[in-house]
């Protein structure tokens, strides 16, 4: 097995785990979770290996596997990583393992539950590594199924509604994506994403054609991001989903949308992207401000975090469609940091919920007095989320902002409003901290235990990553920059 | 006197449509399954004929037909098992009395 087969192993290892986990009898849930943990752990180890041997100076695809799959239709089994996808792969492998450990106490139909988590992992890894459109689409849709079941079977009180809404909404989006994909295929005769990117940048596609295909892909990706006004599935799905599913939903699934924009819309349809950029920037800014404002009014902690995701993903979109290296670097940094930080927030909210059985902000106050460690970590995550320098959230937001200002396609006033969004983020986060973390401890918190060792281990890597990326930007951006530079050169934006 | 592929294809078409008619009309689940078998047979016949006349050396159509037979056998086995299960549950094999999906 050569090193280039590593990617296939990383993608399909969880599938094997899922099969094994599903076969475990219901009466032995601990076997299933160990299977899941070991599989995820192996996957993470392999990912770390890939990250370690990844050539950070090169801009192209690495570890490429490309064999004919359905040669009649020109479909290939084509995997590879570049600087953008490797950050996402690392994030998804890490959050996958964390999701499993965070679900350690799940006993209800545990074998199926862990099989679903593992299956989800196959789809998530696959989306970020696939370089053939058909493969990409398959993984993309594969993600929906386990998430649907995770929400629908292990979710909260309105789980049916939330899961069906999530499924249909995102499926409706991806149908448009399929249309765009087929249109591209009919026009160019290939499903190969690398070849398509080349075709797009050489101007092989007319602007009229590009516009329509861009719109189709936009609908597919924007639902996933989610961009205002296509975001309403997100709060429902988040509130009803079990903690681990929330973590993966916010941490990885949303990134699939923005990753699609980076991997598909920008390089393949550059002219259309340039033409649409100001409008998308407007939507992004609305997402930023609107998400922040709505988050401020929430009374449910999980909903607050969910709407904050809408706001943060707006920064990603702004960075992407600035079409500058700073903006795109920033976008990937926000994607990574949001995965880590929001994961942390959801985990902590879940841990608090496990103890108190409430997520109402009004019920929880004085967390830092009742559980100093938990409260401190929640405050830490909030500060990372509101973009405090020295923590990871700042890196991306700042770079997105300067990229947007620098951009030739985005007017300055949009950037100014986005900067106000940073202020609003501070407002809702601090307002939450004020009511939840600070103050006199409320009745429901009395006598509850502080974070356990397992919970600390779940959060520790996220805290560490937040600090490392925030203090040493290159630890993340060294991977991203060459790919972004090549992309911007392809698209022809400002340096 | 000889016949070419068109004769076989026409025959297959007739068989298929007879099967289709049966599948659409019959009220007994067993009859519907039998009609489905007719349709599969028609398809197989078509495949083998085209393989014989168009790609005589590769036998691709024959393989396809062989696998269809396998799947059809599996299908009829499962289908009949379902019919039995249904019969146990509802004491009938009449399809028009099985309408739990009614809107």
């Amino acid at each position, binding site marked *: 097995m050569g090193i280039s087969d590593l990617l296939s192993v990383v993608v399909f290892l969880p599938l094997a785990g899922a099969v094994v986990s599903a076969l475990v009898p219901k009466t032995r849930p601990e076997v299933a979770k160990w299977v899941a943990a070991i599989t995820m752990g192996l996957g993470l180890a392999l990912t770390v290996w890939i990250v370690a041997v990844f050539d950070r100076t090169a801009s192209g695809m690495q570890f490429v596997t490309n064999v004919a799959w359905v040669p009649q239709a020109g479909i290939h089994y084509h995997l590879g990583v570049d600087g953008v996808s490797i950050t996402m792969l690392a994030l998804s492998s890490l959050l996958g393992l964390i999701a499993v450990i965070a679900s350690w106490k799940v006993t209800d139909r545990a074998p199926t539950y862990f099989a679903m988590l593992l299956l989800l992992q196959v789809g998530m890894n696959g989306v970020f590594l696939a370089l053939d459109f058909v493969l990409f689409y398959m993984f993309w849709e594969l993600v929906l199924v386990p998430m649907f079941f995770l929400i629908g079977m292990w979710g909260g009180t309105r789980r049916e509604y939330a899961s069906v809404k999530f499924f249909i909404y995102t499926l409706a989006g991806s149908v448009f994506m399929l249309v765009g994909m087929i249109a591209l295929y009919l026009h160019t005769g290939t499903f190969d994403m690398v070849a398509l990117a080349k075709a797009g940048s050489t101007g092989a596609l007319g602007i009229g054609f590009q516009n329509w295909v861009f719109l189709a892909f936009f609908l597919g990706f924007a639902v996933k991001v989610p961009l205002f006004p296509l975001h309403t599935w997100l709060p429902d799905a988040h509130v009803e989903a079990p903690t681990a599913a929330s973590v993966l939903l916010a941490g990885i699934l949303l990134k699939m949308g923005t990753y699609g924009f980076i991997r598909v819309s920008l390089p393949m349809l550059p002219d259309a992207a340039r033409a649409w950029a100001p409008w998308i920037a407007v939507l992004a800014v609305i997402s930023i401000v609107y998400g922040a404002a709505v988050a401020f009014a929430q009374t449910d902690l999980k909903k607050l975090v969910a709407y904050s995701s809408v706001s943060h993903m707006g920064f990603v979109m702004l960075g992407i469609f600035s079409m500058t290296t700073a903006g795109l670097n920033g976008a990937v940094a926000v994607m990574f940091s949001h995965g880590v930080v929001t994961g942390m927030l959801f985990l902590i909210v879940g841990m608090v919920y496990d103890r108190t059985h409430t997520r109402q902000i009004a019920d929880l106050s004085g967390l830092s007095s009742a559980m100093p460690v938990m409260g401190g970590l929640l405050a830490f995550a909030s500060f990372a989320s509101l973009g405090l320098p020295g923590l990871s959230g700042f890196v991306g937001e700042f770079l997105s902002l300067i990229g947007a200002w620098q951009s030739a396609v985005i007017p300055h006033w949009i950037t100014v409003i986005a900067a106000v969004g940073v202020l609003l983020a501070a407002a809702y986060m601090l307002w939450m901290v004020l009511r939840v973390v600070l103050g006199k401890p409320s009745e429901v918190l009395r006598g509850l235990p502080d974070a356990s060792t397992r919970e600390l281990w779940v959060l520790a890597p996220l805290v560490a990553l937040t600090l490392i990326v925030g203090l040493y930007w290159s630890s993340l951006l060294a991977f991203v920059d060459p790919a972004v530079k090549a992309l911007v050169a392809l698209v022809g934006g400002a340096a | 006197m000889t*016949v070419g592929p068109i004769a076989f294809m026409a025959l297959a078409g007739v068989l298929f449509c007879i099967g289709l008619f049966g599948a659409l009309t019959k009220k007994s689940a067993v009859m519907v399954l039998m009609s489905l078998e007719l349709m599969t047979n028609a398809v197989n016949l078509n495949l083998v004929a085209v393989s014989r006349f168009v790609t005589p*050396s590769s036998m691709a159509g024959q393989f396809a037909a062989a696998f269809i037979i396998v799947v059809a056998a599996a299908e009829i086995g499962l289908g009949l098992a379902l019919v039995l299960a249904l019969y146990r549950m509802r004491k009938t094999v009449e399809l028009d009395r099985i309408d739990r999906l009614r809107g």
Partner: protein
Amino acid sequence: MPESVAAVPFIVLAALAVGGAAMVILSRNVVHAAFWLLEVMMAVAGLFMLLSAGFLALVQMMVYAGAVSVLVLFTVMLTLRRREDAERPLDLSWSAGLIALGVFVAVGAAVVSFVPPAVMAPVRTPGVTEFGTQLFTQRALPFEIASVVLLIALVGAVWWAGGEDR
């Protein structure tokens, strides 16, 4: 075009197949219909022979004529409470007939517009030997998958048909 097929046996077998199929649909008695189906299967097996697909003909005989028909007959027997239950109305319907006719017109149009390409006859028509060789070399994977499918179907069928005692 490779060597053609003699018309006389084709016409005989085709008549048997079409007639049998019609009888399947038109029999009032389910048991009779099952026997007519068996007749159609055998006619099709003959047609396979005619198309020099010997192995398939054999499989057709064994699987359909042997196994499936028996299965159908058993099911019919098991789901009949009285002898009279075997007699059923004809259940003919105009709309279904129209649809079937439409499909036939469409298919017929497709068939009529089909122009057989000119193909060189092979040196030797491949037979059962070649079929077997290919089956276990080039097409080993589909073969294995097919066996797994059969196995799963078997398990499933047993499961569903298993009865109340599980």
